Every structure is written in C-alpha cells, then in structure tokens.
C-alpha cells in the first residue's frame, strides 16, 4: 500500500514536471516524454501492476490537460508500456546491456507509435515525415534522457 502511494506521489511530480516545465527541454519543437521514462522505471524496478495503472491514470490526466481530440490514447499507450516493461521486472540486470537498450527503444517506439502516429493520422503530414521528423527524433531524444536517468538511478546496472 505504501509503495503505491509513494509511486503515485512520484508520478504526480513527474506529471507536473512534464506538463509545466517539460517544454524547457524542447528542441526544434520536439519535447521528450518524462512520463514514459517514469512508467518504464516503475515497471522494471517496482511492480508491473503499478506500472499499468499509474500509466493509465497519468496518461488520462495528460490527455485531459493537453486538450487532444483523442483523449484516452496516452492512457492506453502508457498502460501498454507499463505492462511490457513489467515483464522484465527484477530480471533486467541479468540481460546484456545492448539488449537492455534495445528493449528501452522498443518500449519508447510502442509509446510514440501509439500517441504520435494515431494523433497525427488525419493531419497534413505524410507518414514518412511523421516517422522521420517526429517519431524517430522524439524516440532518440527520450532514449538519451532515459539512459541518463537510468545510469543515475542504477537501473539495469549489475
């Protein structure tokens, strides 16, 4: 019980950080997602169930705050990422580092494919432009920040 409260408070702080000052980290209009890093962290180190439901809940709040037409899509994407990262809960240290990073990239791609591709499907952008100008740069940028955070937090370290 104490764990879920602690994780919720931590998640709330990340959410506030993402929503209010996340744009400070914006490069050429690409803002990384700190919330997905948090959900992967929870899935890998705390609990798969916490990751699923915290992902759903905070994703829903982000959807409500950003005024997207697809309210619920971030909730769905973060719940899926929470589940996927939770599969490796407690086992990530035994996986080779290169595979760890491939997994992180996979989690981020799942998240950004669901949020970016679906929300921009009816826009004037061509699919190629969405992939190469938005999806991949956002994934790489968030992966860089995730790597930095996980080194500091010693996630995946032997």
């Amino acid at each position, binding site marked *: 019980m104490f764990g879920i409260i602690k994780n919720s408070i931590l998640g709330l702080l990340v959410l*506030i950080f993402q*929503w*209010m*000052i996340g744009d400070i980290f914006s490069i050429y209009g690409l803002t990384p997602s700190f919330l997905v890093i948090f959900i992967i962290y929870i899935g890998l180190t705390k609990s*798969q*169930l916490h990751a*699923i*439901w915290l*992902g*759903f809940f905070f*994703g*829903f*709040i982000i*959807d*409500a*705050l950003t*005024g997207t*037409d*697809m*309210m*619920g*899509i971030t*909730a*769905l994407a973060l*719940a*899926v990422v929470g*589940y996927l990262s*939770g599969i490796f809960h407690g086992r990530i240290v035994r996986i080779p580092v290169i595979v760890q990073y491939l997994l992180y990239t996979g989690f981020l791609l799942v998240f950004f494919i669901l949020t970016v591709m679906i929300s921009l499907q009816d826009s004037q952008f061509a699919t190629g432009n969405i992939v190469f100008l938005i999806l991949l740069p956002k994934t790489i940028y968030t992966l860089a920040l995730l790597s930095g955070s996980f080194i500091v937090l010693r996630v995946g370290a032997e």
Partner: protein
Amino acid sequence: MASKAPSISRYKSLVNLLAAIILSLLIIASNGTATMDRTRAIVLESSAYLYVPIQWMKTIFSVEKDYRELQQRHIKAQIELNKTRTLAKENQRLRSMLGFKGDKHFSVIPANVLSDVGSHTMNSLTVDQGSDDGVTLLSGVVDAEAQLVGKVVAISPHTALVQLVNDKNFRVSVREMRSRDVGILSYTLKTGYVIQDVPKNAEVIAGDSVVTSGFSDIFPEHIFVGWVSTISPVVEDYVKSVRVDLATDFNRVEEVFILK
C-alpha cells in the same frame, strides 16, 4: 481448486492490462460527449491551482532573458519613434500651413483581462479597471501592439466589460490604407470580418492594411485592424464586400489598454 490459483495469478497482469485497454478504448469512444467534457473541465480546473505558483516561478526565471529582449525591442522602437516624430512634426507643420485643425490626443489605461465570455452571438471580456480608475462607457480598447480589441460596454467601480470586435453587434468605421477607401467593419460567424458596401471602383487588393478611420469619438484614427484577405462583388457588381483577417489574436490577449 488449489492448482488453479497459480495460473490465475500468472494472468493477473494480463487481465489488468486488458481492463486498462478496455477503459482507454471506452474513453476514446466517448470523446466529445458531455461527460468527457465535464471530466476534462474538472482536471483543468484542479490543475489551475497548481499552475499559479509554477507560472510565478517560471516568470522569475525568465525575467532576465525577457528584460534583454525587451531592451533590444525598446531600442529598435525608439529609433522608429524618433523617425516617426520627425515625420509627425513635418506633417503638423505642413497641416498648419494648409489650415487643418490639430489631431485629437488620448491617453491609455492599462488593464488585465480577468475572464472572457464567448458564444455564437456575444463575445466579451472582463478587465480589472473600472469607473474608479477613469474608465468611461464606450471607450475604445486596444492590445499591447495597439491593435483593435473592442470597446467598453458596461462598467462597475473596479471592472469593465469589453465588447470584442468579433461580437456580432460590434461595428467600427475603418479605412483601407493603400486606396484610402472607408467602410464599416462588422463580424458574423458565417462571413467572418467583412467591410460591407465598398464602392465598386475602390482599388482594394488582398494584403492591404486596414486601420480605424477616426470617424467616431470611440476610436482615434490609425489603430491597426488587420489585412484584406478576399474581395467579392455583391448586389449586381455595384459594391464590393471586403473580407478582413483580424490582427488581434483573442486567445493570447492577457492585458489590454483602454483609450481615454
């Protein structure tokens, strides 16, 4: 029975994921419904309490950068002002030589926007300056770029209600800068901003600037209104209807200036 327990717990995460996916899909399917709009409003209302102190902190951090930017803009504006002053003096001298009367002078009252109210027919905003601060009924209102915002239609001692240009009851006399033609600008939801009954031979083209004409006591002349977007002939080609793109972005108006 005992042998089933481990298999259920093995699928616990999957069941939870499915539940989260079904809930998300239900939320996506109910987008645009009154319940979802209400839920979104509650989240936004709650977040507003958090936003005030963080906005204050953001302002503190950006003060120096903003100050430098404003300093640069101020210098550029000062140079432009000096040029304009020289031209104004020259103009005044020439006008007095020709026997014209002098221009009207006005001062401004700065005011913060408290709230805005919009519907299909009525658009207005409330500001934090009222009759005690010198605001009078039917005073013109402009934004920080001296672009047309609206006019005061109701006042209390500490607040005033400003009728915006995009209110369907709002009318203002405007002048097209290049051709010098004059018309009445109005707004409807269907047509947008339109100057009606412009003479057929008026040489108005898309992109021309539109300013107030000064033919009223509410707005002095040369307050920037917007740009001509399209021109269409009406009433068997006797007059033109000129559509205008308004310069003021009402979504960004945080403070206004009431003309006195």
